[in-house]
């Protein structure tokens, strides 16, 4: 996911001159890392795509402030962090947010990660996740497809498979856990220079 600065500089220069097509290309190149980072850090109930879009809009408005020669991606992620804070603040203003939507400690851990952890590794996690999904069996992939693509209620999944709702829940939990383990192994191997 690293973007070569040499190929980016002319685009940034054009975008700084308000060339919309150049900026569109910049959005296209950073869409995945910014969106992956936003969905992974946006608290439950928040609109991650809104955070990602606002990041690009703010970047466009402030392009004149970007210093050539420095990392554009790092600059973009700094803006994304501010946009995420704005969204988190909006959510916290909702009455009973933490008792209704999310445990406060989960939000705090997400906030810590957003500030302390290297932002670009979320795109790597997304890549690893996609590879791990490939390794699942058909039945597992089907359940995930129902849950994440077509958003079928648990009851309907249960009816379709002739199993109980409890069994479907357990199945979903195990699938997520399996993918979690697979992602961690992949990222560790990558860190050690493998793959």
């Amino acid at each position: 996911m690293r973007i070569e600065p040499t190929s980016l500089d002319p685009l940034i220069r054009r975008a700084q001159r308000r060339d919309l097509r150049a900026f569109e290309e910049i959005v296209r190149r950073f869409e995945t890392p910014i969106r992956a980072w936003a969905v992974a850090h946006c608290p439950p109930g928040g609109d991650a795509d809104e955070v990602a879009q606002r990041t690009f809009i703010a970047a466009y408005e402030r392009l004149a402030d970007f210093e050539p020669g420095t990392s554009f991606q790092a600059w973009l992620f700094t803006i994304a962090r501010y946009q995420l804070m704005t969204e988190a603040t909006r959510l916290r203003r909702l009455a009973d947010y933490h008792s209704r939507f999310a445990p406060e400690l989960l939000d705090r851990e997400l906030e810590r990660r957003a500030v302390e952890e290297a932002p670009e590794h979320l795109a790597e996690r997304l890549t690893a996740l996609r590879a791990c999904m490939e390794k699942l069996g058909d039945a597992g992939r089907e359940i995930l497809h129902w849950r994440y693509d077509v958003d079928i209620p648990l009851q309907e999944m249960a009816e379709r498979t002739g199993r109980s709702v409890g069994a479907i829940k357990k199945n979903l939990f195990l699938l997520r856990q399996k993918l979690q383990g697979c992602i961690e192994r992949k990222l560790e191997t990558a860190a050690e220079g493998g793959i």
Partner: protein
Amino acid sequence: MSARFDELWTDFMEGELDAAGMSELRELLAQDEALRRRAADLYQTHRLLGLAHGRAAESAEAFVRATVARLPVDADAFTAKIVSRIAVAKPDKKAARLAWPRYGLAAAVAVGATLAIQALFVPKRATQTAAAAPQNYVATLVRADGAQWTGGAPREGQRLVPGKLRLASGSAMLQFDSGATAILTGPAELALDSATTATLRVGRVTVRAEDEAFGFTLRTPSSDVVDLGTEFAVSVESGGASEVHVLEGLVEATARNGTPDDAHLISDGKALRFAGGGKDAPVEVPMLARPFAEVLPPPVPRAETPGRVLAYDGFDYAAEMKSGTPDGGEGWSGGWVRGGFGVRDAVLRFLPEPSLRGPDALSRTATGGQMLFDGGDFTVYKRKLAEPLDLRIDSVRYVSFLVRKTAPRDAEAGEEWMRVIWATRAAKAERCGFGVLGNNRPFVFSQGVPNVAAAEPIAPEQTYLFVGKLVTGRDTPDEIFLKIFGPRDALDLREPKRWTVAGKSNRLDARLDELHLGFGPHGGFAFDELRIGTTWESVVPANR
């Protein structure tokens, strides 16, 4: 302990955790730091799963477009840049024309100045963000004359996704979603790259890109051509050499292997030739292209009107029907059946003569009579279509009908008084269609995404022609458009460039075999000349 966490966590992920469960989960997390990290890992994986799956993954390009559409357009800076480059390149008389009227780059997305409003019907999915609205189509094949295609043969009205079009002979008119119009003359091969960019590999294309289409780019093997004005023609020979002829306005052309500093500004009446390979400097050649208006296919009516009328009802019935199922017209399986909610003793009323007076061309083919509705209770009349609207396949359907509001009652925006929708008993959550709200604004409706209403209301005691377009896609989004013609509007002879309302893209998946005519208590009206067809011309008869 861990098993309990697993259970609570899954309920939390599935939105099924109650207040007691939430407080238990909070306690578990408070006691164990490792569990907090694990919970955050699982949460992030869950969210990334959402991004990794089909619809979200497909929406990457939609995200880019939606983001760019929201950027503030800095017209002054843009103008200054263009004008300064022109001044350097060619200080000719045309520079005076560069007081560009407006820059529609952002407006291209806010098509038709429409207004998104809350869904009137209970949506299947609660909300849809701008980024999730897929817009995979880039253009529409508006017209094909004597067109012989190699490979896939698109039909008139078909929405086109990025990909190649190979036209062996004849001509084809394409309307890009950016607003640019292109006429391709066969033999030619054109790749649609996006709503703003196409690549001509061989053949000839004439482009008209006004206002909002400013900046439309046509690539060739030897040059890149950017529209800065309105009208140009490009031809590409089999060896890759290209010629750019500017008919009106200004074009920026760059050799394929050139840098932006090598750009040539070509003003109207001029033409440049780029040699194949795209290395040598271009040479000036005589401007010989025919203007857009001349290459435009001859206006309708054509000798043979393309397309078919699939269903028609002119409402030529007896004055009142307390019972029975009026079954006139054609293209139906059975007659109108009263159904729905709060029906009571609603009487279906007709005015046997005359027909509702619409545009002349329409009246000429009309049958007598019209349907009257005085604005009583909510009532729905249903009729089975002989040929259903199948949302599982790639198809295009057009519908037209006349509406005249007779009881000028104003109501809240949410209280619509008329709707025409496609539905099916088999999947009640899958419906789409058109209607008019209590504030008299026409709207389009597609179950699961917010309705979109027209910016302007229609006036009572005036007859309007509604023309709708329904695009269904197997792997591409379903779309819905509405164009409204008032009593003084000239009819568009072909599918219009701008619709009065463009609905939000959706993905429905049913076979809609019923047409529902719904009435609310917020306005009486007359309804007539209902047509469903496969092309614009099949539902909008031209003057002959």
